């Protein structure tokens, strides 16, 4: 069946990858480690009920993203339909042996359909589109041996969503929505000459700052007894607490 030729990956790219791969190496990059939380806090800006960042986080798009995954998991766990039918309802035909990619594709399509036309191109909608695939991949990696996660077959895929509890799913989606929103703000703000540095800062922010910020949201939700599926819409109510948390990172 002929040769299998593959594309080479440029050395420039490999250098970036090697430099950003471990925290040890990141310390070699002056300034990045120290400033990344501050960069993130400044990107988010002052938090209030009506601030742009909080509006995005609590938007209908974010809620739809969280609902998409929690809803699917609950249908598998508590619904009457066989798992194959649930998958079919989510656009994954029985002939598809490894359903993750198709599931994501269809979830994004449904998200676009469900959102009003004016909401589709908002920052939050774009962030949720970015977050959905990453969330599914993360969940697969959490509940399956990591080397098998990306090739999950139907049984494994279904099992992951049966095992994943709603709060884990919500936290995962929120993590990626927050990361994506911060990335977009940084992209809009930076000049081209900062490209490589920005990539490292983004990665560092996603690894260190975002989990802390997300954990704060999770803590507030638990304290106030908010179920995971309702978290996005309650976020504006916690603006003061979030501002107090984030202000310590700011200039």
């Amino acid at each position: 069946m002929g040769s299998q030729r593959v594309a080479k990956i440029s050395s420039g790219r490999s250098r970036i990858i090697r430099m950003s791969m471990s925290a040890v190496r990141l310390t070699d990059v002056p300034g990045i480690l120290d400033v990344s939380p501050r960069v993130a806090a400044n990107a988010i800006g002052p938090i209030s009920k009506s601030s742009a960042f909080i509006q995005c986080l609590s938007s209908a798009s974010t809620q739809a993203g969280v609902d998409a995954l929690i809803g699917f998991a609950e249908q598998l766990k508590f619904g009457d339909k066989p798992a194959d039918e649930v998958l079919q309802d989510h656009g994954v035909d029985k002939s598809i042996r490894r359903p993750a990619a198709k599931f994501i594709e269809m979830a994004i399509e449904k998200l676009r359909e469900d959102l009003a036309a004016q909401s589709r191109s908002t920052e939050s909608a774009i962030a949720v589109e970015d977050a959905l695939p990453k969330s599914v991949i993360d969940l697969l990696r959490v509940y399956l041996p990591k080397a098998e996660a990306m090739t999950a077959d139907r049984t494994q895929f279904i099992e992951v969503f049966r095992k994943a509890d709603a709060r884990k799913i919500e936290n995962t989606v929120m993590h990626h929505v927050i990361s994506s929103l911060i990335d977009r703000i940084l992209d809009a703000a930076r000049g081209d000459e900062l490209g490589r540095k920005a990539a490292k800062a983004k990665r560092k922010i996603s690894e260190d700052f975002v989990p802390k910020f997300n954990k704060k949201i999770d803590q507030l939700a638990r304290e106030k007894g908010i179920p995971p599926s309702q978290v996005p819409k309650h976020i504006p109510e916690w603006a003061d607490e979030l501002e107090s948390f984030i202000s310590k990172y700011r200039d």
Partner: protein
Amino acid sequence: MMRNSQTVNNLIEAQFHYFESGSPEKAATIVGRLMEPLYNLGRYPELLGILRNTIEKVDDLDSRFYIYQARALMALGRADEALAILQLVHFEVEDDPELQAAILVDKGGALRRMGEFWRADEIIKDYEEAYRIYSELSPLTESEADKKIFLENTATCLFGEGTVYQYFLDEPGKAIEKYYQAQEAFGQVQSPDGIADCTKQIGEIYANRRFSTFYDRDKAEILLKRALDVFESINYQKGVLETLYQLGRLRRDNQAQARKLFERYLELAGQLGLIREEAVAKRHLAELRFQEARQGEPASVDVPEVYANVTRLLNEAITVLQLFEFDIWSRRVLVNCYYQMGLVLLAQDQNETALENFKRGLQVSDEPVFEGRFLSDVRRRTLLLLSAIQLMLLMEDQLPAIEELLATHLADFELLGLPYPAPSQVREVIARLKKGE
């Protein structure tokens, strides 16, 4: 390109040492350097094992690790798993055009290996898109080395397009045109393996009787040998292996020569740990030995012993090939193994077991992967069908079953332009099919 086995072995040792000493991040850095050379050396099972270990033990690996996991799986005949990985990684690298292009190229390869011929246009568009991306990236980099890589990758895209025209669209002229364009670009970056790969592909087209306007055995042999010389001179084992296979097929009329080539192919496949290719070699060797025994060559041949040997080879091949459920090449060879096994059993007057094997072959050749209706697949399926029917005609009360079998394969006769055979014509139609008519 790092093709020095000793250097690669040192890196393997180093990553192992770092994992053992509890420094997985350092080990991952070494694995990151090791992936491409190990892939180029054709040591896919080893690469896959190292990547599995790395992925299990290190968090937040970048996408390249998964891309190489997919590449290793694909090279090992597990194209559906490779495709699943590539589709997911594609979501993760949306802001990285270079990796997106690399994934488009790999996806094309996976879909081709899975026999998804109806997606030929989509695959070609993906190659064109990847070509566009690499062409646009080139002026943006100041690094001469990166410029060279991007140009080489555009050649790889053209090469990929050529394979779709060759294997999916049956357009050998268009395929050759693409290979020549790719070869020119590989020439500009002085990529001997790229140039030789194109030579080999063109040789394969000239070797294929199906492409009647191009069929030229002598030309094919010259091109394949030229490619083999280059691959051997640069120690490009993957290329050597693939060319030995093509030369073996080309020389099937000279059994002794073909046998030598397939024995070499078997040995190299074994060294590289490629069980699918070993199985393929065994099926060809089985066929050649069976033919030799039938012709009484050499004169001293112990026919029962040869048959026992052939049966063993085929059984070994079948056991392995059954595992490659979604690899169209493996499925084709599996069908051929069942057919060959049927013939060996027939030669020993074991009609019932022969019939069982023809039916098993027919069952595999009815799988969805063969719905592409490539004429060669249809011909193979019809040969099995008629071989089974020929035996069933000798048995009692088989007419309803025969009618049912024929009824489910009527379209095949239409596609091949063959008469719907009366029982008395079955033998004649089989003979025509064997001649490739």
